[in-house]
Structure formats: C-alpha cells, structure tokens
C-alpha cells in the first residue's frame, strides 16, 4: 500500500525492484518552504505510481528500501484479474 503523502519520488523502490514491477513519474514544483532571497528550490510531486502485480513477487524490498516509509504491507484479499492490464494497480488502487 502506498502512503502517497510521504512519497518523495526518490525512485529508490523503482530502481531496487528485482523484477522491475514499479513505475513512477513525477514533476518538479517550486518549494513553498524555500527561503526568500535564495535560489528557488524545487520539490518533486508524484504524478503516477503503479505496481504490476502480474510481475511483483512480493519480496518486500521496495518497502525495506523506502527511507520515508511511504510503502507498507497491506492485506489484499483478491489479486485475481481477467487481464494483464488490470493487474497493474495504479495510485488510486494502492492508496
């Protein structure tokens, strides 16, 4: 399960995944906490996050590597889908 308010789009989970089942895109926005006068800082804002459960092997490495605890185990009672595309759970289904 994804706690998207904690996700910083750092890409660690995507890059550590041994089976490449996570996809993520983000865009940069000006950081409102950036101090005035200094260089405008940016933060990454999550656009898209998906886990392909047709590929995921439930190793939990993504959960282990996330430095912000934005991913956690959750009980999914039924992962049976009728198509490969439906097995890709997007942000709405993961949060």
């Amino acid at each position, binding site marked *: 399960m994804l706690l998207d308010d904690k996700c910083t789009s750092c890409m660690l989970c995507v890059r550590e995944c041994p089976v490449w089942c996570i996809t993520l895109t983000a865009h940069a926005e000006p950081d409102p906490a950036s101090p005035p006068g200094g260089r405008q800082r*940016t933060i990454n804002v999550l656009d898209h996050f998906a886990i392909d459960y047709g590929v995921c092997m439930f190793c939990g490495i993504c959960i282990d590597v996330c430095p912000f605890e934005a991913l956690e185990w959750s009980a999914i009672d039924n992962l049976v889908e009728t198509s490969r595309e439906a097995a890709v759970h997007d942000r709405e289904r993961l949060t």
Partner: protein
Amino acid sequence: MITEVHAGGWSAAATAMRDGGGAWFGLLTAVDDPAASTLDVVLVVGGDAGVADRGLRCTLDRADPCLDSVAGLWPGAAFAEREVHEMFGVSFLGNLDLRPLLLPAGVATPPLRRDAGLGRRASTEWPGEVEPGDEARARRRPVRPVAADATDWVVKL
C-alpha cells in the same frame, strides 16, 4: 541431513529412506554449477512423527543429466520431476509424463540453467531510468542494473 549418492545408487537410497520412515515427499529440485560442469539433484523427504527430515543429493554430468525416477515411491515426486525436467533439463528414467508445464516447444536452454539468457529483460525498458522531476538538473544518470547483452547477467565464475 543430506546424503550424497551416485546416480546408480539413487533408487536404492531413496527406497531405504522411504522405508526408514520418510513417508512424506518434501521437495525435488536441482542446482546448476556450470563451472564444475555438474548439476546436483536434491531430494528432501519429511519423516513420520519423531523422524527428522532427510535428503539425498546426486551430482550429475551437466551435458547429459539422467536419473532414476522416484515417483514410484512418492507419487507427488512425479510432478516435481516434471518441473525439474522442464527447468533444468534432467531426464528421469521411469517417469512417463515429463510433458512441459509452462514452456512452449523449442526452448533451447532450460531456463533455470545458469547459462540461459534472459532475453526479455534485455529488451525491456528499465523503469528506473526515468529521472523524476527536473530531468535537466539530474546530477548523474542512473545505471541500469543489467547490461543490454542477454547473457550478461550470468554469474561469471
């Protein structure tokens, strides 16, 4: 405890293990060692109450791995032998149903041999290549974990 046996003594050792209280089939799998040109087949059986799990290991020639079937001793082993046949290319003499479970006909190298190339991975785009946010400001490009060559991930021994 795992006992090493020769291919010729496989059936006898398995029979002795079953008759000695190893009534429950546990697992049958193989370990490929291309450096030594061998393929180990491992069998583990569970004991009756009070009897510990035991196993057998048999080192086979990688070029032509061939072993007697133990499906007559534990019917459940037939399916595991079918799988090991498909994934490692081991022939089990006496097992009459070694049809492939998953693979289409004509796969050259059994996929769990260490020299089997992972072609699909070489042709798949790595999702980690995407740089989130301001791509122009990324300090360094992420390094794809495997090279483009289909066999490059094979462990060099």
